[in-house]
């Protein structure tokens, strides 16, 4: 299973095309927040940008916290989302150690599902969908 990584954020120009694409294509929203990837500046535009997205934990803290089957463990890291199971409790967002789950104004969670649809909308090739090397990743995330 491949995972999405924002490996080259030093190149980011802050256009938000990735977030808008994820919201549009995956979450069916018009938003730069209700998206599996969110771009922030790290203290003003001169300091560059960082991406908030799921790091594909295994086991995933958000899935463990979820009281229903809305978030369940995805093989290879991250979660499988079944929104019909979601009761808008917000525990997933609370549990995520890297603030990767966005709760919209109705309390609905939005998280990266590692589908890679955003990748082609990055003009500077900051993002990539790649295999997670298992030998360094068991039990947590890895720096790939």
């Amino acid at each position: 299973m491949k995972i999405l990584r924002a490996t080259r954020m030093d190149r980011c120009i802050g256009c938000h095309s990735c977030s808008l694409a994820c919201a549009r294509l995956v979450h069916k929203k018009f938003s730069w927040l209700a998206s599996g990837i969110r771009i922030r500046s790290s203290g003003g535009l001169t300091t560059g940008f960082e991406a908030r997205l799921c790091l594909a934990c295994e086991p995933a803290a958000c899935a463990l916290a979820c009281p229903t089957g809305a978030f369940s463990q995805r093989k290879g890291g991250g979660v499988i989302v079944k929104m019909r199971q979601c009761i808008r409790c917000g525990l997933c967002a609370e549990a995520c150690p890297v603030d990767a789950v966005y709760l919209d104004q109705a309390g609905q969670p939005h998280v990266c599902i590692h589908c890679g649809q955003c990748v082609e909308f990055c003009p500077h090739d900051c993002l990539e969908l790649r295999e997670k090397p298992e030998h360094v990743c068991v039990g947590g995330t890895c720096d790939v």
Partner: protein
Amino acid sequence: MSDAAFRVCIIHLHRGKSEIVTFGDKNKHIGGSGLAAALFEQFGLPGEPWSHPDQPLIFAIGCLTGYFPLMSKTVAGFKSPYHDQYAESHAGGRLALAMRFAGYDAIVLRGRARLPVAVHIGSRIIETKDANYLWGANVFTAGRVIRRAFPSGSGHRSILRIGPAGETLSAYACINVDTFRHFGRLGSGSVMGVKNVKAIVVSGDGDMELPGTDSKVYGKLFKKVYKDMTATEMMSKYHDLGTPVNIAPLNALKSLPIRNLQQTSDPDAEGLSGEKFGADLLIRNAACSGCPVGCIHVGMLREQFQDEHRFQIRQVSYDFETIFSLGSMVGLMDASSALALMDEVEKQGLDAMSTGVALAWATEAFQKGLLSMEQVEYDLAFGNLQAYKEAVWCLGHAKNEFYRDLAQGSMHAAGKYGGEDFACVLGQEMAGYATGETFFASQSLSFRHSHLDTGAYGYDQKHHDKNPDKAVAFMVEDERERVLLTSLVACLFARGVYKKELLAECLACVGLPDLAANMDQASEDMQRLRWRTRLATGFEPEKSRVPKRFLEVETWAGNMEPAYLDAVRQGYIKVIRELGAPAETRQE
């Protein structure tokens, strides 16, 4: 009120309250330029001065903002301190998308706060906070402090602020938007200043449903536009070296204003070329939100401030216009020096173009003995970076009577001290195109007195028949097409991609089929509304002038032809009067 109405947030500064109103009609006003003019018609006081507390400061986005790539700009509408008439200025940055996601098509500031404030507007918050402690702070300091004062929402908000120039009410104080972009021209910064608003934070903290009825159709059309913007040659100029790529060709065509337009070509201009900036100083690009092109070019300014290898570095954005105005126009013919002066101008919150051209006039006036050392305080000489840096501080702070006068415009100062013949003013300080009569006629009369009102600088380069009727017809039609784009609101760099057919497809896709079918009429109506508003606030095109210096220019095409220039201007004046005639008169 129909679904096609705009949602407008009106802030009443004097009583610290706001209201949300529905206003106008997307099918009629489109947004941006059209919406701003309509809001000014509703809330503006044409007969009162720009500084009247009840004059509105309007920020407007359009009906395609954020929905498609490069629909990423915001229009400011206000009564200008430069000419005390209705004016527009446009800016990129994050503001347009922040307004979209905050849920407002326009923000209108009315009244005057008792003490300096920062205004914060989001989808579920409208607040004003004391900013008295920030009065006097430069643009960079103001940005840093405001980021701390409003800690949440980084990356999804826009921060507007003014520098000292907006506080001292310079006629060309700008509003800085997100560090690298600006409402640059015609003094909107002082409109904020006179209202006691140091900063505005717009948080794009809401989320919305997809536009239209079919998400697949929208996704497909978005992808097509995105590919056109990123994969085709049309945008590479902006993406690659950026607008500074124009320095070398304009220099070769003897059309680059140099040393207060005493020259239009100089071998030394090579030191300011886009290629030079790209090779030596460019460190990164940045983008307006919603634009994958990333045309913002950021250079590294490295300055030694002490012995023993102590350096400071700063990131400074540069464009063709700032290189012309703060480089060649003031005789700073190397890229680092021009960048250093741009940095000073940023701090003071001044319009870069007007500042450079005003300093160029002051330099020549000082050389000619019209100004004394006591007045200018520093040895203003073409190429003297240190003197210009000090002068920029003096301008921003209106330090003495002379700098106070110069901060009201070059022609204002020339009227008092002499030197009107060589004040390079075409409605406001000139843009960087000494291409010929058509451009001079256009900027001296056009709505924003901007090089972006029409493509006249390109027309000068392509058409040599000197036919005034054809030139006027081109300008009027080109302006109408640009009014459509600046109402939607598209970045004008995208004008090669956003042709009418594509715009109609986009409008239909977001649920505005009536506007899609009626774009030409709507844009003509907004063109007329803008001119009516401008004329109602006192614009008398017959009184505009083209100073003598422009007639002395020699380009690659030869000397200026005053008769042709005059004929184009007279033709354009006639059209402006017709376009701006009261609606009822026109219908008769």
